[in-house]
């Protein structure tokens, strides 16, 4: 069974079919990338999967659970985490605080036991801290631990956002344009991080990406979209050679 199945997904904004009958399946342990020209519906699919939008048609199934109508805040508990194209962090908090908020889906305490600071709360707190430190080590964020997000450069914030998503211990990580706004060197680092996330944490990655260098270096499978429809699906090489895909990007003769 696939980790994530998207079946006949569609959303219409007025008369515009932003996503039209899209189906695909992401297998556990792979890096699956959605590519396509601007406005193809990539981010819309992300927003559908993360339940910001309600689909007009279709079903979303994760790990055997139909979550088509689940509210957005329960997605994390299901095992899906995401990052955003424009980075959504808690700006007036430190890196460590941001990551600790990521432990929220695993918190099992109530107000009373917190006020009394029972041993169980203390133990849970220590476990959360350990998990956070593990992610900090994995993504090399030690130097920024106590820094305010507002003071960090863009490239670092991008990594922090990914780290926070990983702190929720997801089975599936959705990365929305992980390389956008990064320079060549940072993009290179990003491809290492994605490899590490897949290999060392065993997290399945579904991403939307424009940088074809990054796409072909990390992706196991690629799905190409245009005008909300699936153009091609397969290995990065297959998709890049597909005449429809080339036409969509470069605008071939009609």
């Amino acid at each position, binding site marked *: 069974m696939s980790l994530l199945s998207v079946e006949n997904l569609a959303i219409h904004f007025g008369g515009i079919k932003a996503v039209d009958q899209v189906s695909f399946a992401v297998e556990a342990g792979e890096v699956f990338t959605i590519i396509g020209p601007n406005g193809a519906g990539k981010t819309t699919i992300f927003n559908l999967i993360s339940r910001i939008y309600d689909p007009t048609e279709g079903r979303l199934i994760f790990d055997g659970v139909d979550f088509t109508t689940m509210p957005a*805040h329960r997605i*994390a508990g299901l095992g899906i985490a995401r990052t955003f194209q424009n980075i959504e962090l808690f700006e007036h908090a430190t890196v460590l605080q941001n990551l600790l908020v990521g432990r929220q889906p695993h918190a099992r*305490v109530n107000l009373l036991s917190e006020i009394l600071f029972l041993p169980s709360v203390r133990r849970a707190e220590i476990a959360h801290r350990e998990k956070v430190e593990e992610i900090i080590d994995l993504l090399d964020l030690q130097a920024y631990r106590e820094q305010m997000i507002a003071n960090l450069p863009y490239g670092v914030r991008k990594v922090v956002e990914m780290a926070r998503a990983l702190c*929720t211990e997801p089975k599936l990580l959705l990365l929305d344009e992980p390389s956008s706004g990064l320079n060549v060197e940072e993009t290179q680092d990003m491809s290492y991080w994605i490899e590490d996330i897949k290999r060392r944490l065993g997290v399945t990655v579904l991403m939307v990406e424009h940088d074809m260098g990054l796409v072909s270096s990390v992706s196991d499978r690629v799905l190409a979209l245009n005008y909300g429809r699936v153009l091609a699906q397969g290995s990065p090489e297959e998709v890049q050679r597909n005449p429809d895909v080339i036409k969509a990007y470069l605008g071939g003769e009609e």
Partner: protein
Amino acid sequence: MNGIAVGCIYGLIALGFVLIYKATEMVNFAQGDLMMLGAFVAYTLISGLGLPYWLGLAGAVIIMAVFGYLLDAVLLRPVIGQPQFAIVMLTIGLGFILRAAAGFIWGHDPLSFETPFTGKVVNAGGVVIATENLAIIFGTVLLCAILYAFFRFTRLGVAMQASSQNQLAAYYMGIPVKRIFSMIWALSAGVAAVAGILLAPKFLIDPNMGFLGIKAFAAAVLGGFGSIPGALLGGLVIGVIEQIAGVYGPPGSHETAAYLALLLVLVLKPGGIFAQIGRKKV
């Protein structure tokens, strides 16, 4: 002393404004009326039902918190996403309704209830201080300490901070943002109730006491609208300025001093004393 005590009340109401504004970007113009309602509920519990003061206080705070929660969940949630104007009109209208309802239920004659602080004085080394003033100041400090600990150390408090800093991110950390917003309304209404109850021995309770909220609004703006310590300090500043103007200024300046201070701050330091809204980087 009087100025500081009244300032504390302004600060508490301003705190309510700021809590809601920071989280939901709504300005709740009915904040002063929530305080009025809190005082009336306490009146009913203490003078009407004969409960002891502390029980009545706790009861009124809980009832107002539930009221605040429902207010958000039932009335305000549907207007989220509408223009700011609609929300402002809604909360102003809500203030009118609350005042009218209070007048209908409790009448327009000023009321008061017995508190442990009414009419007593403390002689502190030759300085005579009214106990009710001390109660207000002590109550405010205690409430602030509790709120600080709540936001700093509890999961709910942190979830509230997270939701107000970034809603989108909060959703994907598994925080039920909508419910958290309603809880912030509950908190804010509870704080307003405390302010109303603390104020009760000083002023009489009547449906129009909520107009005090306008001065508290001035305090919130003075403090930078969005800064919690700023709101409290803004309240103190307004309270003290008012008293000084009342004693040394020409007649009538007691009432206008607060707005004059507000105007001055807006002209000289538009971001407020504790501006949190940084200039946009270009």
